[in-house]
């Protein structure tokens, strides 16, 4: 796998937080949404989402809750905490800054 793809995968946490900021989701739905928004750029197997989710939970940025779903089943729903919201804002801001800086530099070399 080439370097830029790794870079994008490193920001998996950020994407997860951003998606959960919109609405609480369970794991499968979250993985579907991830695929939807990122297309094929983000090459992760569905399973590798879970270590990341549990790590975020331990860091206090998201909270998990078992909730009933259709057909008498239940699923673990993840939602953003207020700490997570703040973290997301900071991370998003710094991401903007860095990507702006990088694309600025790239445009420079193109000229």
């Amino acid at each position, binding site marked *: 796998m080439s370097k830029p793809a790794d870079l994008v995968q490193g920001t998996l946490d950020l994407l997860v937080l951003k998606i959960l900021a919109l609405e609480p989701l369970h794991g499968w739905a979250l993985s579907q949404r991830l695929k939807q928004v990122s297309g094929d750029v983000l090459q992760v*197997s569905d399973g*590798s989402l879970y270590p990341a989710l549990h790590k975020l939970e331990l860091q206090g940025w998201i909270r998990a809750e078992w909730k009933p779903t259709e057909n008498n089943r239940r699923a673990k729903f993840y939602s953003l905490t207020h700490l997570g919201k703040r973290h997301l804002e900071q991370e998003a801001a710094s991401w903007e800054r860095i990507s702006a800086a990088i694309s600025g530099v790239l445009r420079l070399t193109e000229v």
Partner: protein
Amino acid sequence: MRLENWLYTIPLRLRSLLLRPRQDAELDEELRDHIERQIQENQSRGMGEEEARLAALRTFGNFVAVREQTHQSWAWAPLEQTAQNLRYALRSTRRAPLLSVVAVLALALGIGLNTGVFSMLNAMFLRSPTLVDPATFVQLCPRYAGWFTGADQTSSFTTEDFDSIRSRSHTLSEVSAWRQYAGFLEPGNMYITTLLATCNYFHVLGIDRPLMGRFFASGECVGGARAQVAVLSASLWKNRFGSDPRIVGKTIHLNGLPVTVIGVVPSDAANYLLSGVFLPYTLEPQLNRAADWLASPDTPWLSLTGRLRPGFTRADAQAELTTIMSQQDRAYVQRKVSAFNRKTALVITNGSEIENPSIRDLAAGLMMLMLGPLALILLLACSNVATLFLSRTLARRGEIAIRLALGVSRSRLAAMLLMESLLTVCIGGALSMVLAYRLPLMILNIMAPGQANFVVLLSPDWRVFGYLAILMAAATVLSSLMPIRASWKLDLLTALKGREGSATVRSRTTSGLIVTQIALGFVLVCAAVIFGRMPGLIKGMNAGFEIHQMLAVPLDVNTSGNNRAKAQVFYRALETKILATPGVQSLAYASLQPFNQAPPEEIRLPRQTKGTGQPASVDDVSDGFFSSFGIRALKGRLFLSSDENSAGANSVAVVSQAFAKQFWPGRDPLGEKVVMPDDRHLTVVGVVADTRSERFGILDGPRLYALRSPSELGGNLYVRFLGSPKPLENAVREAVKSLDPMQTIAPQTIWESLEDQAEGMTAVAQIILVVAAIALLMAVTGVYCVLSFAVNQRTREFGIKMVLGASRAEIFRAVLSRALKNIALGLIGGIALAEPAMLLFNRLLARSPLPLHRFDLTVFGISAVLLATVSLAAMYLPASRAMRTDPIRALRTE
């Protein structure tokens, strides 16, 4: 992580700790839910049921791995892993009980020896000598510039220094002074250690309750009073006075001085003096008749200890006392009490030897010498354990390969192996405490029988436990390095295919182990050979002069000033009396004592200026010296009694062969002139044979005998006699006593004092022999284990070689020749290690008569032969097993 986040996740962490199984079940449910939803999704897209399931599993990835990874991201995961590693280590320890027991015992022995000796050295050198409030205890160590020799020297305090510090210091609440001295004890007729001390000595040390009777009252240490009282140490009381319950009030004699016993001090607290007598320091002039130090204005003789006043630090005390001492220096110069102009620098220590500037280097050197060999033993133990673990790791190669294939990371595997070592080391370390506790007592019992039971200060403190922890950490790392390396480099494919035989340990590893073990063993065997030979060397040497029929008569006569006339009368009367004793042949005086090295003096040839001469020992002897000692003249003549009376009384000299060779190589020394340090010119009239009087069994360097003036007094008196020494010793003692009842002496033949020294050496040698025997045993078992392990590894190779036509003898030779090469390498490495150690040892013992060379071929030779023989014997078994390899069976196991 920020605190806020951490606080926020406390409930989660608690749940994770307490409800682990439930959390696992929930994770399972969550992951399965995901897969089911994916299956449903796939089916709704029109896939068949089986197809949908497979596709879902494919997109999900490795289910087990995901579960494990998620599990590891939970709180407490590292702790959980450690517990797992521990369980695993326990299981594998139980599975190979014999191997584990051997490893534990080797480590217990290695660690126990080290810790035991360290706790002894700690009590001797490292800790403050008091148990009560050590933080306030101080010792004052002065260093003088421009005194006596002119060079800087560490020394003690004069009585005046002590008085002025005692009366003027505000930072010290109490100051005590003391001085060790040899006292001749009657009843018992033996020398014992005597401590001249101030009356608050015990209080400053923190000892307030006597075992019996009382301590000194403050009035007993005032200059004029001179109360003749003594406090006995408990061990002396027990060993010399049979624990007499009515000892208090009895009178004993020390150097002829009658003193009344007023109490017994428990020895456990008197670290400075294990066995002896305590006297008020004001008794010094009566005890030491040769000089009155107490009243002397410029004799430094007292060591000072004290207690800090609350609120003051050692730095405060140092500043204040330095000021007081520099005022003392000025007063000293103004009064012109002596020709020297001293400048004092002061160091305040906690009273331990290692902080005392004058002993520090010696103490550190001694500690290195004692701990160094023991560290080698621990290294040997570690390499043995490493071999055992390595063979165990390789035997489990299949299991490890499967673990790796299932996704255990190599670092996790290393952690598991490290835990196995740690477990073994911990069990060994716990066992070693028994040894560490018993060992110092055992050693002291051998070195100084009768005193060991009184050493309670040996109780371990933080330094001992720190040392133990360091040793254990080092042992863990050292013993696990090699197994970890082996499993790290494990080739998964070959190991999983079960082709066990083809994956062998590199021969460099096994060779390295053998070489290390032999090198380490060699150093210790060398030490054992040196010390094992010592008593025999001392007793068996040819000194070159008479030692059996020669009695040394130690006298303590004040020959200075007013006492000169009296001393002269004493000596003449004594000489007459001794010569009249039956059995006595002759007597002689000499200024040098045999086996007691004196610094050499500078001897010049007539045209040489001061500072360009060469060093030589100078012995001022009486005219009967050579005939009494039985030293032959090789050339010229010996001293004649007419030399004494002739006008040029001081103008003749007799030199030793070595002297003649060094000063006039290849020329006849007779008639040549030499210049003494005091500018006397002497003419050489004779050459005598070299003697071995400085170091045991070693020829002396250049030596010049000058004729002692007949009017001179003092010196060492020797009596040559016929027959058995005992009655003569008594006769001489009685003769001395009848002339001066205060003279208390124990005359001994030179041979008897040599025997005493040899006996002392035997005790040391015994300890070293035991240590070396342990080392040798470890080295040999180590070599045996490594080689039989290597042979086992190569069984298949041997089988193939045999099938291809190699004879059994060739296989045997191949194994043995490589082993021999390793032995040779190990011995070379051993010499490289032993040589600097001997250099250090030599430097420490430079002033002692023990014969030590830097590169002692005999010692190295004996050790090398011994070690080579023993390790060859250890190698024979594995090598012959290699020879008996059955090629059919070796190859069928494939």
